[in-house]
């Protein structure tokens, strides 16, 4: 206790130097927490928006559909649709199976036109699976029949349209001819997924069948399971049972993000390591300078018979205190900011627009306009531990160096 008290008092002997040293630890811990929060958050955000707004846990389609998806083929319909449905329902009775037709269309208002992706859905099931109404400005579900449209917020903004206004949907039908119809905006949706907000619209399945002259058939069904971990099991079962069917799980869809994130995580690790090495060098320098400034005092302690181990402990305790204070401040600031970004998100829409364009459609992946950080208490504790550990480690050599002082010499010189 006494050593700790003395160590605490000693760190305020040269306040400026102590603050500088603590700052390097602060930066390291702050950076570690923010980077961890961001990297984990990217993964979580992408998984969430993919599941909540696009493919649910599983997407089932014709086995050739994925390779031709860019062309929005209406002739590659899901084979054995009813059988697929019953296999899923048999294994997972509470699963939601949402039928869809994905098609390419042009939205227009007489003055301008914009290419977009149309999603024709069974409104009631989609509402259960995705709760689309919570993303809609109207907060109401998409009507099941009639010519109503839910349009992405960025599209609505570029047309300067609001609820109640009309947009014309022009699309190629299944037989290859062109068809168009007017749809009234029932809601402007803002999901945080740039593919939807910037380039998609939803219409009721029944009205889409008229528009696309497609009385039967679906391009895919999306499945929401009671447990998302079951997606792979369902996928395997379906593909085994139906040769012409392909299933894409949420893990398949977000794999690229996880792969990219691995690289991002490694880069952050290198960066944080560099910061921590700088902090360690600063800490070692501080302890060494402090020891040389207090040579006489160390000589006195040695003369009084203080064991070498306790002198080492005194200096490592000082480094530990500096590390602890820097780490706690770093954890407080990093943790608070990361938590804020976990709750409110980090708006990256401008960055995404710059990279992918306003619709975010140049990639097959969902693109988030907000990154929600994912920070846990254990990450914060890990940051503090890392800061203190590096500080203690860095102080060991200079602390041991003090015990090499010859008390005769240091007492004579001071």
């Amino acid at each position, binding site marked *: 206790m006494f050593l700790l008290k003395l160590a605490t008092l*000693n760190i305020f*002997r040269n306040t400026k130097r102590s603050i500088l040293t603590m700052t390097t630890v602060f930066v390291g811990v702050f950076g570690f927490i923010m980077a961890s929060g961001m990297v984990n958050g990217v993964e979580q955000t992408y998984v969430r928006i993919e599941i909540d707004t696009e493919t649910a846990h599983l997407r089932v389609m014709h086995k050739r559909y994925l390779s031709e998806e860019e062309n929005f083929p209406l002739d590659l319909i899901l084979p054995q649709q009813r059988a697929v449905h019953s296999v899923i329902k048999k294994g997972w009775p509470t699963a939601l199976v949402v039928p869809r037709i994905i098609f390419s269309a042009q939205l227009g208002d007489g003055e301008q036109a914009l290419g977009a992706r149309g999603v024709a859905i069974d409104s009631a099931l989609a509402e259960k699976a995705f709760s689309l109404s919570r993303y809609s400005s109207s907060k109401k579900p998409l009507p099941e029949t009639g010519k109503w449209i839910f349009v992405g917020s960025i599209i609505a903004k570029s047309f300067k349209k609001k609820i109640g206004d009309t947009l014309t949907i022009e699309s190629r039908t299944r037989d290859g001819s062109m068809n168009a119809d007017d749809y009234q905006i029932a809601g402007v949706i803002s999901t945080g997924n740039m593919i939807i907000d910037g380039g998609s619209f939803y219409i009721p399945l029944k009205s889409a069948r008229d528009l696309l002259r497609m009385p039967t058939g679906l391009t895919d069904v999306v499945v929401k399971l009671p447990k998302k971990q079951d997606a792979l099991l369902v996928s395997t079962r379906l593909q085994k049972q139906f040769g012409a069917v392909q299933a894409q799980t949420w893990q398949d869809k977000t794999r690229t993000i996880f792969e990219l994130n691995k690289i991002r995580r490694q880069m952050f690790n290198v960066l944080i390591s560099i910061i921590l090495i700088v902090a360690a060098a600063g800490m070692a320098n501080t302890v060494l300078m402090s020891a040389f400034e207090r040579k006489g005092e160390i000589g*006195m302690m040695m003369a009084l*018979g203080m*064991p070498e181990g306790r002198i080492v402990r005194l200096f490592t305790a000082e480094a530990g205190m500096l590390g602890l204070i820097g780490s706690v401040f770093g954890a407080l600031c990093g943790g608070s900011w990361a938590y804020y970004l976990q709750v409110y998100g980090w708006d990256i829409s401008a960055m995404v627009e710059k990279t992918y364009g306003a619709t975010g459609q140049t990639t097959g992946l969902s693109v988030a306009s907000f990154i929600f950080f994912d920070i846990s208490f254990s990450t914060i504790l890990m940051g503090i531990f890392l800061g203190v550990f590096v500080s203690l480690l860095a102080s060991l050599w200079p602390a041991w160096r003090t015990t090499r002082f010859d008390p*005769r010499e240091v*007492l004579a010189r001071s």
Partner: protein
Amino acid sequence: MQLAAYCEDVSRIFRPGSNEVRALDGVTFRLHRGEMAAVAGPSGSGKTTLLNMIGCLDRPDQGKVFLDGEDISHKSKHQLAQIRNEKIGFIFQSFHLIPVLTVFENVEFALQIQGKLSVDGRKDRVMPVLEALGIAQLASRKPSEISGGQQQRVAIARALVKKPVLILADEPTANLDSKTALSIIELMVKLHQEEGTTFLFSTHDPMVMDTAPRLVHLRDGKIVSDSGEQMNKNQPKETEAGDVSA
């Protein structure tokens, strides 16, 4: 009378570069318990080396050093530290107080190192010493808030508090003005006379030499005069390293 320290034909040779300097050259010296002696001599005469030898901070190249009857000539660094911890009090020229601690804590520090007493036990030991030295009212002050003389009193208290066999003081008045230096020496003499504390200090201050009950003169590593020589000569040979009274 029991011996506090005894040096038997002690030599200490330093070799800076190709030279050889005999800091102590065949010194035989006895200091009895309750005795107060000053070691005087010009710079380089070996005063500090003699004190370091008795204070377990150095080991002889030749001869033997006994402290409180124990041969310390061949003890390890760790063992010497333990002996210093238990048996020796040091007073330094530059006081070497810890600036971030209060007067009380600086004195308590010596007991903290020993680690033998409880908080209350340490308090019971420190306060009477501070009172005896007339600095009890400064207990909560920091060293920077008191004068040089008061700081040296704190250093004396730190040396006294663990009730050592011997207190070594290397030029304890060198950093003090003559008036303060005199008061410090008088205090040490008083402690010696009233408490029976054993003191060995080095000095080249004539005023301090006049006050010391026993004066040992060193030159070129040899004792050239010792006012306590007669008393030492009267000691029977077999008690030199030991603990039986004359």
